[in-house]
């Protein structure tokens, strides 16, 4: 026997339904309330964010483009087989003695002069003591109390066109450490080829207030370094490295907040991203009423996030002291003047000269002088042509398009500046049209021929000869009587159609200006004829 329970009629069921309805209602109300609160919090956060300012200082390490290491004659070549560019000095063998590479001093003084630093007449080397396997002496030779350059600045230009001076606290010379390779099971492998590679450390004042400013400052440093030809400025390969000290504080506050060091940013964009991320993290912490801990964070470019550095290093106490193995460096007035004279034209000077001498817009001058090689390429074009603006247009559009597409350096670009200059002259002398010039340009990308050769070979010379063009025009006009009538009745737009037809018939070789003039003459003469 089955027992049937009529639960729908039970009073408990009604209660259940009632309860359930209330529950749903309640839930909806609560979630919408939570959403509102959340929205409010976010809105507040946006509001709160703008009340903070970031305080950023950058420490930049630039590998110097010398042939040999800073204290020994081993090669600094990148990519040699492991532990092959080493000797007792850079291996830190007892009894070996360092001897300073003169070029390192010269390069560092050049950088100091280019960044408006005071060049200290006397500077000394110090030992920075710490135990790390890629530093076999257990100290790094660096400069501490008396660096070679101090109190400089560079000027950055922000997107809104405003200028800002960024102070440079100091620039000093030091040696690089070796390379540790960690992905070898339970061991770390040490390659000491890089040990002793000359480095220049450039320390900025905490003058930077945003990731944009940091990016611009770093870009400017690279520009100066490459103009001086003392560092190749490649962050991806590690010849230029950047660590950032970041803190935040309320706007108007004079005291600094607790700073966090961010390392391991291996591209210019990553520097910008990592700093942005860290500023956000610190604001979130403060807004949540938490404390910022002084620590070192590593940027992970793949995950686009920051992670605390976990090494077995202990708290640093470097016990700096003057290195008794090295004599003081004295840069006297004569030497300084000599180096000053050898300074090349610097980015800002070149940019201003381009604006003045070549009458270029600021925009053009900025792009053309962004790298020394691009500026050189541009000026080599001007040895062949004096059409400054056309040369600039060709470089900024056609040339840079290819360079960016192929991800190459301007030095590797197929078309020589001389040939590009010749091409511009061919246009200006009305030998070829601008349209044909683009075809010739594309042809030059794959062949070594000069534009003159290509034009001759392919018979691309523009037809400017009126009698020859008149014949073509007559043909077209005869073939399209309806369109001629249209023109005569006032539809002057059809002239475009005629020009197109003539260009087609001449395979683009007709001089468009001559065609236009001749067409108008012919059509207008028909007009008078008709009227008579």
């Amino acid at each position, binding site marked *: 026997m089955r027992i049937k329970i009529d639960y729908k009629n039970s009073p408990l069921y009604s209660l259940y339904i009632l309860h359930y309805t209330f529950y749903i209602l309640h839930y909806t109300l609560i979630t919408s309330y939570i959403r509102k609160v959340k929205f409010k919090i976010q809105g507040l956060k946006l509001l709160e964010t703008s009340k903070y300012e970031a305080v950023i200082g950058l420490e930049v390490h630039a590998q110097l483009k*010398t*042939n*040999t290491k800073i204290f*020994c*004659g*081993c*090669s600094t070549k990148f990519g040699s*087989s*492991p*532990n*092959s*560019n*080493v*000797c*007792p000095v850079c*291996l830190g063998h007892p009894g070996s003695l360092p*001897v*300073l*590479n*003169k*070029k390192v*001093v010269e390069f560092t003084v050049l950088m100091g002069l280019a960044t408006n630093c005071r060049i200290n007449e*006397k500077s*000394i080397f110090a030992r920075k*003591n710490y*135990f*790390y*396997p890629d530093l076999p002496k257990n100290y790094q030779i660096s400069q501490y109390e008396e660096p070679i350059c101090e109190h400089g600045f560079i000027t950055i230009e922000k997107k809104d066109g405003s200028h800002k001076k960024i102070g440079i606290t100091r620039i000093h010379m030091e040696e690089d450490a070796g390379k*540790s*390779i*960690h992905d*070898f099971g*339970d*061991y*770390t*492998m*040490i*390659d*000491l080829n890089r040990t002793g590679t000359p480095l220049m450390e450039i320390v900025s004042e905490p003058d930077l207030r945003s990731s944009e400013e940091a990016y611009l400052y770093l870009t400017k440093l690279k520009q100066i370094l490459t103009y001086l030809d003392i560092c190749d400025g490649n962050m991806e390969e590690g010849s230029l490295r950047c660590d950032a000290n970041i803190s935040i504080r309320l706007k108007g506050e004079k005291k600094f907040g607790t700073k966090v060091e961010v390392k391991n940013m291996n591209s210019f964009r990553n520097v910008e991203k990592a700093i942005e991320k860290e500023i956000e993290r610190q604001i979130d912490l403060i807004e949540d009423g938490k404390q910022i801990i002084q620590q070192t964070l*590593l940027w*992970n470019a793949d995950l686009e996030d920051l*992670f*605390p550095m*976990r*090494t*077995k290093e*202990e708290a640093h*106490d470097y*016990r700096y002291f*003057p290195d*008794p193995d*090295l*004599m*003081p*460096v*004295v840069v006297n007035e004569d030497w300084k003047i000599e180096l000053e004279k050898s300074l090349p034209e610097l980015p800002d000077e070149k940019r201003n000269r381009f604006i003045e001498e070549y009458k270029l817009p600021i925009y053009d001058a900025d792009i053309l002088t962004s790298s020394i090689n691009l500026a050189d390429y541009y000026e080599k074009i001007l040895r062949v042509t004096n059409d400054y603006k056309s040369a600039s247009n060709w470089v900024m559009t056609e040339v840079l398009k290819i360079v960016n597409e192929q991800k190459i350096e301007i030095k590797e670009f197929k078309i020589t500046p001389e040939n590009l200059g010749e091409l511009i002259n061919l246009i200006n002398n009305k030998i070829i049209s601008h349209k044909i010039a683009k075809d010739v340009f594309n042809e030059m990308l794959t062949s070594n021929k000069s534009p003159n050769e290509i034009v001759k070979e392919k018979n691309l010379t523009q037809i400017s000869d009126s009698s020859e063009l008149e014949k073509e025009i007559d043909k077209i006009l005869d073939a399209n009587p309806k369109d001629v009538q249209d023109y005569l009745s006032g539809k002057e737009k059809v002239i475009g159609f005629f020009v197109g037809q003539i260009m087609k018939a001449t395979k683009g070789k007709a001089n468009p200006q001559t065609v236009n003039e001749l067409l108008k003459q012919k059509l207008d003469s028909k007009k008078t004829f008709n009227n008579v």
Partner: protein
Amino acid sequence: MTIKKEDVKYIASLAKLKFDENEIEKFTEQFNEIISYIEKLNELDTSNVEPLAHPFESNNVFRNDELKKSASTEEALKNSPSKTEEFFRVPKVINQP
């Protein structure tokens, strides 16, 4: 200036050295003896004397940026207690995230 036992322990830890209590006691004494000996120099007025970093008064000892022959990899690794054919090998020094 007095050196305390804690100072000696700290300096020992910076130098990666380990000592027992007796040794620490002894070194603390010795440290203080050395410091008080050196402190005798404070009797001199050196306010107008430039600090001397080096006993030789010479400067600008340079070499030109000229390549010299390096050691071979084999020679470089010869004295290493732990190595592969190309590398010095050490205990893992980083915990990667």
